[in-house]
């Protein structure tokens, strides 16, 4: 879908016109099918602002909800890992994504949590609105991102039992949502300086996001205990952990023309007669973690 021909880009740049005046035939957008026009409305804000005419558009006061400071800190760290100081994507071939979105649960739901943070069982009701994900952004990986504050010393082992279920709102009983599918799993990790825990829920959310569901309602029960189950040590008393409702992290591959396609440019650089085309190994983890985790796992085993 990515053509570098100048003519093509002239046509697409014709798309970059402010949507306000789509009512008149003079605007090329008017001739486009409605779906494509809607696609323009979801153009990344950076390109929309670049396309708007005249400086008065540039400091448009679009009201913005302020993100959670923890989430912002996490994304700044991800930015540093993925891009150089000049802002150029790092050339390490391991990560396939060119878009990462972090959603915090909608605020109304938080109020329903009541006595969050007491005792060891955390049950939260989460509603994520994924409207910003465009049709051309394809899901590679989704992670529930927990940040936790605890007095547990660093490098001690914690085991958490998690129960995740997706809630469906069907019209017959809008008040009591039914549970469509659920999954239970345990998570074992060591407490580190940066207190984040990532729970991979890719296979769990993939069917929903693939069907363009944009409102994801889920209930998450988490019980965390000290100790390591494998070593048959009795799991010690529950930990008093203040768990903030997790954010949802989506690693996406944006196939639109404006997005950077790593493989295209790598192929360009490697272009040479006779050189075999290299495809990313399909099992390659889109975030490049598996390579690391292999290493980490080996070092963990050593430790």
């Amino acid at each position, binding site marked *: 879908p990515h053509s570098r021909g100048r003519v093509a880009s002239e046509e697409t740049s014709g798309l970059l016109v402010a949507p306000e005046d789509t009512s008149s035939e003079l605007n090329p957008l008017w001739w486009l099918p409605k779906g494509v026009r809607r696609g323009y409305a979801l153009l990344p804000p*950076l390109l929309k602002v670049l396309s708007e005419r005249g400086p008065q558009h540039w400091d448009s006061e679009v009201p913005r909800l302020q993100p959670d400071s923890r989430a912002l800190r996490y994304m700044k760290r991800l930015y540093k890992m993925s*891009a150089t100081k*000049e802002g*150029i994507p790092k050339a390490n071939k391991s990560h396939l994504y060119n878009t990462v979105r*972090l959603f*915090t649960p909608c605020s109304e739901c938080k109020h329903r949590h009541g006595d969050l943070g007491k005792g060891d069982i955390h049950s939260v009701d989460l509603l994520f609105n994924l409207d910003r994900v465009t049709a051309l952004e394809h899901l590679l990986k989704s992670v529930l991102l927990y940040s936790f504050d605890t007095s547990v010393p660093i490098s001690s082992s914690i085991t958490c039992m998690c129960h995740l279920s997706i809630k469906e709102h069907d019209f017959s009983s809008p008040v009591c949502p039914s549970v469509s599918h659920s999954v239970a799993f345990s998570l074992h990790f060591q407490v580190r300086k940066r207190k984040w825990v990532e729970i991979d829920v890719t296979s769990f959310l993939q069917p929903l996001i693939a069907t363009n569901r944009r409102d994801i309602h889920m209930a998450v029960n988490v019980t965390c205990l000290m100790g390591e189950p494998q070593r048959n040590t009795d799991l010690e008393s529950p930990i008093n952990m203040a768990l903030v409702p997790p954010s949802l992290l989506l690693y996406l591959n944006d196939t639109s023309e404006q997005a950077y396609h790593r493989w295209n440019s790598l192929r360009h650089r490697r272009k040479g007669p006779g050189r075999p085309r290299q495809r990313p190994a399909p099992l390659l983890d889109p975030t490049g973690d598996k390579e690391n985790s292999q290493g980490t796992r080996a070092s963990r085993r050593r430790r």
Partner: protein
Amino acid sequence: DENPKEAPATTPYNLSQYFKQFLFPQNECELHNFRLSFSQLKWDRWIIAPHRYSPQYCKGDCPRVVGHRYGSAVHTMVQNIIYEKLDSSVPKPSCVPAEYSPLSVLTIEPDGSIVYKEYEDMIATKCTCR
């Protein structure tokens, strides 16, 4: 070289400058640095990173015979000939970017979510005439 005796009486240092102007023509098409910060555009409220952005730009004259230095297609020379010999309303070849590099941007969306996205062709890295 009509009057070789009248070569300019210059110090050796100036002489190298003098000859260099023949080797490297002045004001020819080349990449120029340009750096901006998103705070100048009042965008830093929603563009978290990078703080600074160097898009660069191309500027300069395109020589009559555009050769290998710019990697220009033969068409560029043909356009030059059209401009000179056939129809001067046809513009001369222009100095434009030939290659780009991408840019990673971290922004806050209107709904408060945070997005890291890699954009194609955001920094000019090389110029050409065409």
